């Protein structure tokens, strides 16, 4: 087969194979999804800072003792880091709550605006 014909041939072969019932496999599991637009829910998850201590390691060859030492330092500083991450998480979460409230208000105002433009009576404010 010439290289120029290979892709077309593969497409035909795949169609024929599917017609025979092949390639219907369920290939579930870890799959990459690019993040184009982060939802507020995802931001909420990310807002809580929880560093994974096991990721602290040395990249040097035979760096196990250095990794051990780094993790020892980390444990010694745990009290301080907990204070840092809790303050950071608190700030992140409050900003996100405000953001969610603003989104709700904007949505309500847009809906109200749409009703006014269409001549409908505005909804009575909640008591």
């Amino acid at each position: 087969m010439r290289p120029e014909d290979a892709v077309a041939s593969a497409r035909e072969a795949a169609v024929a194979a599917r017609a025979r019932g092949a390639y219907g496999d369920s290939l579930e599991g870890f799959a990459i999804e690019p993040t184009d637009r982060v939802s507020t829910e995802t931001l909420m998850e990310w807002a809580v800072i929880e560093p994974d201590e096991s990721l602290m390691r040395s990249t040097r060859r035979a760096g196990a003792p250095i990794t051990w030492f780094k993790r020892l330092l980390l444990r010694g500083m745990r009290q301080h880091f907990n204070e840092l991450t809790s303050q950071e998480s608190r700030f992140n979460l409050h900003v996100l709550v405000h953001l969610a409230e603003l989104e709700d208000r904007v949505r309500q105002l847009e809906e109200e605006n749409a009703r006014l433009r269409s001549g409908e009576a505005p909804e009575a404010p909640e008591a």
Partner: protein
Amino acid sequence: MTRVVHQVLSGAGPHDAVTTQARAFRSLFRSWGWKGDIFAGHIDPRIASEVRPLDELGTPPPDALLLVHYSAYAPRLRRVLDLPNRKLLLSHNVTPARWFWDYEPTVAIHCQLGRAQLPEYAARADVVAGVSGYNAAELGSDVVIPILFDPSSLGPAGVAASGGPPELLFVGRLAPHKRQDELIRLIALLRRHRLPDARLRLVGEPLNPNYLAALTELGEQLAPGAVTIESSLSMLELADRYRGAGAFVCLSEHEGFCIPLLEAFHFGTPVVARPVGGIPEVVGDAGLLVEDRDLAVVAELVASVVEDVELRAALVERGTGRITAFDRDHTASALRAAVDRTAAAPR
């Protein structure tokens, strides 16, 4: 007068493609009687003897040129823009952040900032170039300084191993945009429908331990015992992997250039790849480019590369010829022309 060209990198590492290029360029400069050092914002300790910290760049003599390799955000690199020296910006491409947010947020932030910062660098450089036409076009330029591919560092092409089970190979960082997860699904399909004893070998430094663990688990789940993941290989070991491969398969979603394609050509390994970013320019007609998202099509294509002797021979022959487009003379000529153009740029 001896020309001085200092090269500036955001980061330098022993296996990093940009660092490898900077070292190759320095070797070219020296062969032309020029001078210049390599400076980086972050230096891997393993290469500290060859690269100087960026702080040591200081204020170079006014007639020294700065070749800025841009591949990632580096806050301290911005200082270089304020220097009065003429600058040649060489874009190696920055991967879009969308591939990293879920897996390594720090890398995502650097990518996001890097891509946002790149136009400013381009605007303040005297000449803007890319290692591929794709990279150059992103910045509105048509100046290309291709990657200098030196196969001598890889050893001789040698003889491809035969007789064993067919092995697919991919070489590249274990990172989301390289889509090793797709390759694992591909090998699972191949084994179930076309090549029952096929294997997959992934070579590359993992983005982080969690990402490596996720890929390893996926391999065990979909193709138990058929997926091998390796990193930090020596050149000799890497050469062996290429020689033993039945095909080099690249399903990356983003590549500014993709040097392993040239390595595969050098070792006579047939190439199947997705035509994204700079890949079509690198591959030319020497590999099979498949844009289909349907992995069944890719599986059929890979199976024909492994099984069809005529197809395989044609790809190997074309691959061998393709390397000449990235040889020392070709890149040296483009590099020298770009440096001359930078030196002559009006101020």
